[in-house]
């Protein structure tokens, strides 16, 4: 299901003294099965944007098309849009409320009036997808498991709706490096094995760089930059002006280039850098 956004504008509290333009004529397309990184600092409009993609907000003007569903300022949002597009909010574990992990994840599927057998299948599968042991924690209270586990329960609750597009708003915020790497590798699996379209909202250039196909950079309600990671990270000055940085490794490579070393621009992981530097250094010694 491709996502098409055309001339999307959103004004909060129009006509009041608090009126503010959150999205200003935003247009882009996301292809089926793409992994998109959405970045921009606080207030740049990225949360407003993702809330349009599953119909939580409606455009002030412009339109969004997801599959065959069109959303404009006057449309009624069909329920199935929310099933197609799963949205994981920031700190989603704050939304857990049921008595057991199982009940919490089953809440969405039960509201679809699915038979209990199907509900259980979905709960099992969703827990497996986020690396939670079904037997070990299904009967635990969501309030007595660790923070990292709570977050995964919340994500499983969204996955149990079997969306084909998954949007995650800073899924790793507040987690330690180990918890972060676990969640990111599970998201990567969803993309690679299930072919899910993923939109990852993140502040971490390092994470985005090694995961996504394309980056969309938002600034002041507009799309400031779009492209592959190497294209976006080559715009260092623009990113700086928006209060964003580039991965440390990319900075090293730029430094080397400035000192006359012939290195490519699209290096943003330690693995890539090791390979390129070894080639250059060994090449120099053999020459």
């Amino acid at each position, binding site marked *: 299901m491709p996502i098409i956004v055309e001339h999307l504008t959103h004004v909060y509290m129009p006509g009041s003294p608090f009126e503010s333009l959150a999205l200003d004529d935003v247009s882009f397309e996301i292809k089926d099965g793409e992994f998109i990184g959405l970045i921009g600092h*606080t207030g740049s409009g990225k949360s407003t944007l993702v809330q349009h993609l599953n119909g939580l907000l409606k455009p002030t003007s412009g339109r969004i098309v997801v599959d065959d569903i069109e959303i404009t300022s006057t449309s009624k949002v069909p329920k199935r849009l929310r099933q197609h597009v799963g949205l994981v909010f920031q700190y989603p574990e704050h939304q857990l409320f049921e008595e057991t992990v199982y009940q919490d994840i089953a809440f969405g599927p039960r509201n679809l009036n699915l038979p209990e057998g199907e509900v259980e299948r979905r709960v099992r599968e969703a827990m497996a997808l986020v690396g939670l042991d079904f037997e070990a924690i299904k009967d635990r209270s969501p309030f007595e498991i660790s923070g*990292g586990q709570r977050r995964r329960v919340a994500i499983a609750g969204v996955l149990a709706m079997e969306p084909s597009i998954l949007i995650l708003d800073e899924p790793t915020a507040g987690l*330690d490096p180990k918890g972060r790497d676990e969640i990111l590798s599970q998201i990567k699996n969803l993309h690679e094995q299930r072919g899910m379209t993923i939109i990852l909202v993140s*502040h971490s250039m*390092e994470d985005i760089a090694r995961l996504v196909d394309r980056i969309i950079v938002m600034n002041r309600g507009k799309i400031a930059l779009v492209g592959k990671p190497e294209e976006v990270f080559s715009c260092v000055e623009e990113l700086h002006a928006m209060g964003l*940085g580039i991965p440390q490794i990319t900075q090293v490579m730029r*430094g080397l280039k400035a000192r006359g*070393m012939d290195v490519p621009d699209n290096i943003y992981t330690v693995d890539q850098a090791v390979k390129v*530097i*070894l080639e250059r250094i060994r090449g120099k010694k053999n020459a």
Partner: protein
Amino acid sequence: MEPIIRLQDVQFEYLSFEGEEIAALNGVTLDIQKGEFVVIIGHNGSGKSTLAKHLNALLRPSSGVVWIKGMDTRDEDKLWEIRQTAGMVFQNPDNQLVATIVEEDVAFGPENLGLPPEEIRRRVNEALKAVGMEEYAQAAPHYLSGGQKQRVAIAGILAMKPEIIVLDEPTAMLDPVGRREVMETVKYLNRHEGITVVHITHYMEEAVDADRVIVMEQGKIVLQGTPRQVFSQVEVLKEIGLDVPQVTELAYRLKAEGLDIPLDVLKVEEMVEAICRL
């Protein structure tokens, strides 16, 4: 000189939901000198927040002793003096602000000390100035960014004239701009106001400018030293599931390939320099 913070073989146990006894701190001995800037890292459950809460007597040891400026935290009579000496800033900025106007929030602490109004006014102004928020004295906190809210929370602590500030993951919920604002404020207070700082974080780049980095794991201190000493232990850090700055990891990997690169590289410029020298 007597260290301003002193922990002697501190043990802290609590009961889990299953009724098991868990040692959150398992024999921690630590001295922190006045004016030091100490960063504590370690993953969730390593005991770093429990340690922080011992520094202003929110928690007290099951066994062992914590002295803050010579005061034993088990001494009930010293409780308020200890909390005034060591102020705490927490993770979530929204949970720490109590008033509807920034300057009233900062005044909350000094008002509770029963200080004269002119002294409160002076402290509030100074505190807001120190964190670079004086322009926002009359603003409502909910219109501020996360980084600004955290700076107001820090100002509220400063107005109590503490000698120590303990920050428990103050940047975890902030964006990169907010993180930079808070870190600059914290460094300023350490360097220019001489405040002893204990800063807990997951972001390794925030540890780079510290005087000392302490690594916690399973309730114990497993590694400590200058940032260069600690981060050059790439294997140890990876084993316990912690990050090192990308450039330090690059140095480690290149060295393993036989290149002559120092292991204690922390900054981009140093790395570029080291490679160009080869």
